[in-house]
C-alpha cells in the first residue's frame, strides 16, 4: 500500500510524461510550420494554460477530495502567485514601457515617484520566485490557522474562503493598492533577459508547466498513499474519531491547506508569462467555483481525475466559445448539471477506477 502506483500506473504515467515533455515540444519545434502535424504557438500556449489549470485542480483535489475541505477561494492563491511573478515581469520591462520611465506605466500615471515598499527586490528573480511560494503560503497558513483552530467546517469554511477572495479582488481593483488596478499587469517584454514572445520561450514555459504538473502529481500521489493521506481521508469521513485517536486534526488540515495554496501559487506563476496578463478578475468567486467544478467533473479523491477534469472543462470551453459563441453557456451549464446528476464520481467513476481513498 505504500507503493505510489501499480506497474500499469507507472507505464501510463511514463507515457503521459513522454507525451507532455517530448512529443509536444517536438511537434512544435522540430516539425516545420505548414506541416499538418505542426503545433502552432497557439496550441502550445493553450496546452500550457491547461497544464497550469490542471495543477490548480490537483491542489484543490488534495484539500477537497481527500481532506473534505471545499475551498471557494483557490483562485486567490493562484492569482497571488501570478501577481508575484507579474511584479518581476513588470520590472523586466525596464525602460521599454509606454512612458520609458523606470516605473511601470500604471505607477507613472498615478504620479508615483518611487516603488512602494512591497515592490522592493522584486527585480530579483529568485526573490520573486520566493514570493510566489511565500505569499500564498503565508496567507493560507494564517487564514487556516485561525479558521481550523475555531473549528470552522463545511459550508461555513467554503463561504468565508469565498469572502476572502472576494475581498482581495476588490482590494486589487483599487488603483491605489499598487498592482495596476483593473488592468493588472500586462505587456511583458522578457523574462530572465530573454524575449518572452517567442515560440522557443513558449515551449520552455510549457515544458516547465508540464514538469511542475508531473511533480505535483507525484507529490500528491505520495501524500495520499502515505499514512498522512490515510489520516486526511479519515478526517474527511469521521473527524471526531480521528481526534479521539489522538491526532490534532487542525494541524493536518492546516498542512494540506497551506501546501495546496502554495501549489496554486506556483501554477499562477507559470500561468502569467504564458497568457501575458494577470488582473483581479482571476480572484472573482466564479473562477474559484469553476476550479471545484473541474475536480467534480474529473472525479473527487482521485488525483488523475482532477487533471482530466481541468483539461475536459477548459477544452470544452475553448471549443464551444469558438464554435457556438452565442449559446456555449448552455453546453457548459448542462455539462455541470449532468455530471453532478449522473456521474457523481466524475469521469474517473465512469472509468470505474475509483479506489476507496
Amino acid at each position, binding site marked *: 500500500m505504500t507503493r505510489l502506483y501499480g506497474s500499469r*500506473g507507472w507505464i*501510463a504515467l511514463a*507515457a*503521459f510524461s513522454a*507525451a*507532455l515533455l517530448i512529443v509536444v515540444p517536438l511537434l512544435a519545434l522540430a516539425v516545420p510550420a505548414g506541416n499538418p502535424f505542426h503545433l*502552432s*504557438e*497557439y*496550441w502550445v*500556449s*493553450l*496546452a500550457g*494554460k*491547461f497544464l497550469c489549470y490542471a495543477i490548480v485542480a490537483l491542489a484543490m483535489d488534495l484539500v477537497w477530495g481527500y481532506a473534505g475541505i471545499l475551498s471557494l477561494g483557490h483562485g486567490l492563491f493562484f492569482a497571488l502567485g501570478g501577481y508575484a511573478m507579474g511584479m518581476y515581469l513588470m520590472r523586466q520591462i525596464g525602460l521599454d514601457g*509606454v*512612458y520609458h*520611465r523606470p516605473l511601470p*506605466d*500604471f505607477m*507613472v*500615471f*498615478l504620479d508615483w515617484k518611487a516603488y512602494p515598499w512591497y515592490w522592493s527586490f522584486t527585480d530579483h528573480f529568485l526573490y520573486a520566485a520566493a514570493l510566489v511560494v511565500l505569499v500564498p503560503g503565508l496567507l493560507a497558513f494564517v487564514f487556516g490557522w485561525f479558521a481550523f483552530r475555531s473549528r470552522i467546517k463545511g459550508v461555513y469554511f467554503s463561504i468565508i474562503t469565498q469572502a476572502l477572495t472576494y475581498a482581495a479582488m*476588490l482590494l486589487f*481593483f*483599487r*488603483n491605489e493598492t499598487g498592482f495596476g*488596478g*483593473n*488592468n493588472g499587469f*500586462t*505587456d*511583458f517584454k522578457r523574462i530572465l533577459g530573454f524575449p518572452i*514572445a*517567442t515560440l522557443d520561450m513558449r515551449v520552455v514555459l510549457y515544458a516547465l508547466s508540464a514538469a511542475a504538473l508531473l511533480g505535483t*502529481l507525484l507529490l500528491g500521489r505520495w501524500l495520499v498513499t502515505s499514512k498522512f493521506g490515510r489520516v486526511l481521508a479519515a478526517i474527511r469521513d469521521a473527524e471526531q474519531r480521528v481526534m479521539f485517536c489522538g491526532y490534532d486534526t487542525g494541524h493536518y488540515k492546516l498542512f494540506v491547506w497551506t501546501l495546496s495554496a502554495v501549489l496554486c501559487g506556483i501554477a499562477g506563476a507559470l500561468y502569467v508569462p504564458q*497568457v*501575458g*496578463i494577470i*488582473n483581479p*478578475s*482571476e480572484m472573482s468567486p466564479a473562477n474559484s467555483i469553476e476550479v471545484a467544478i473541474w475536480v467534480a467533473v474529473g472525479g473527487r479523491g482521485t488525483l*488523475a481525475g482532477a*487533471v*482530466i477534469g481541468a*483539461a*475536459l472543462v477548459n*477544452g*470544452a470551453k*475553448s*471549443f464551444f*466559445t*469558438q*464554435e457556438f*459563441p*452565442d449559446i*456555449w*453557456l448552455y453546453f457548459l451549464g448542462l455539462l455541470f448539471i449532468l455530471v453532478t446528476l449522473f456521474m457523481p464520481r466524475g469521469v474517473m467513476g465512469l*472509468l470505474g*477506477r475509483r479506489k476507496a481513498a
Partner: protein
Amino acid sequence: MKRRTFVKGLTLGAATAAGGLAAPAIWAKSKTVKVGVLHSLSGTMAISETVLKDVDLMTFEEINRKGGVMGHKIEPVVVDPASNWPLFAEKARQLLTVDKVAAVFGCWTSVSRKSVLPVFEELNGLLYYPVQYEGEELSYNVFYTGAAPNQQAIPAVEYLMSEDGGGAKRFFLLGTDYVYPRTTNKILRYFLHSKGVKDSDIAEVYTPFGHSDYQTIVANIKKFAAGGRTAVVSTINGDSNVPFYKELGNQGLKATDIPVVAFSVGEEELRGVDTKPLVGQLAAWNYFMSIKNPVNAAWKKEWAAYTKRKKLPYADKPLTNDPMEASYIGIHMWKQAVEKAGTFNVDKVIAAMGGQQFKAPDGFTIEMDPHNHHLHKPVYVGQVRADGQFDVVWKTKGPIKAQPWSPYLPEDKGKKDYPEKMTKKS
C-alpha cells in the same frame, strides 16, 4: 490512465482546430477573406459588446452585398472571449494564427485591449478598436475609431464652464475605478488647473465595478454643490449608471441645479433607464442617434431592417450609438484601405489607412489621421430627452484631431504623434 487525460485535452484541441479550419470551408471558395469579431457575448461586458458584434455582421453583409472587398467576400469569424481578459488574448492569438484573419474588429474595455495588444504586436495583426478610451496609447497594429479624451472629455467640460453650460465653478469627478476614468479625470484635473480651478473645487470619487448603491455618493454631491455652481463629470461604467441616475432623480437633483455630463452613457445605456427624471442631463459623444442627416437616416434604417430580419432581441427598439458608429466607420475604412493597397497585407493596409475618408452618420466626412491612427471626429454635447434620446445642445465647428497623448499630462511631454514601430521579430 493519464495518457487518456492528455489525449482528451489534445483531441479537444484538434477538434477546435478542425472547427477553425473547417468553418465554412474557406479553402474551397477562393474569393473570400476572413475577418475576426472579438466582442464579449457573455459575462459582464456582454451588455455593451453584443450589439457591436451585430453591427459588425450587418456591415459585413452590406459590404458583401456591394461586391465585397476587392471582390473577396467577407467571412466573419465570431468568437466569445466571455469578458475574461486572458481569454481575450487566447482568442486573439487563435484568430490570427489558426483562422489567419486579415483584420480583427473588437474589444471594449481598456483591459481587454491591453490584454490583446501584445498578441497583435507580436504577430503583426490588425485591430480596429471602436470605443472612446483614455488615450495614452498608440500602437502600430491598432486603429482607434473611438474618441480620444480631447475629442470628448475636454470639450464637454469647456461647455460646462461656458455660460450656456451653466458656468460651473466646482467639479465633482465621479467614475468607476479603472483606467479610463482615472486617466480622463487626471487629464481633466490638469485641464481645470490650466483654467484656474483650484483643487479645493474639484472632488474625485471612484466606485467599484458593478456598484449599485449611490445613496451616499449622491448625498455627498449635494453637500459639495452647496459650495457653488457645481457640475458632475461622470465616467461611471455602463452597468452602474442606472442605479446612479435613479438615485439622482429620486433625491431631486435637477439638471438645472447640478448638470451631470457622462462619457459612457449613450442611447444603449439609457435603454434600461426610466429617463423622465433625467431630462436635461448631458452626455458628450461624437455621434448621437438623433442627429439629422441623410447618411444617419439611411444607416438607422439599415440597422432597424437588419435587427428585424435577424429577429434580434432588441428589434422592437433598434438603437444606434457612438461605438456602433465607430465600428461601422472602422470596417468601411479598412475596406477602403485594402482596396487602396490592393492587398490584405497588414503592413500595406496600415500604410494605406492614413488619410482615408468616409462619409459618416455623424454628418461629416471624417478622415483617418495620416499619422496617429485616430479619426478626426466632431464632438457633440447632448441633453437627455424624455424618450431616452439626446438633443444636441452644443457641437464643435467640425471634426477635431485626436490627441492620444494629452498635452495636459506632464508625462506625455515629447511623445511622438505617430506609433513608435515596435521591434518586430523576424
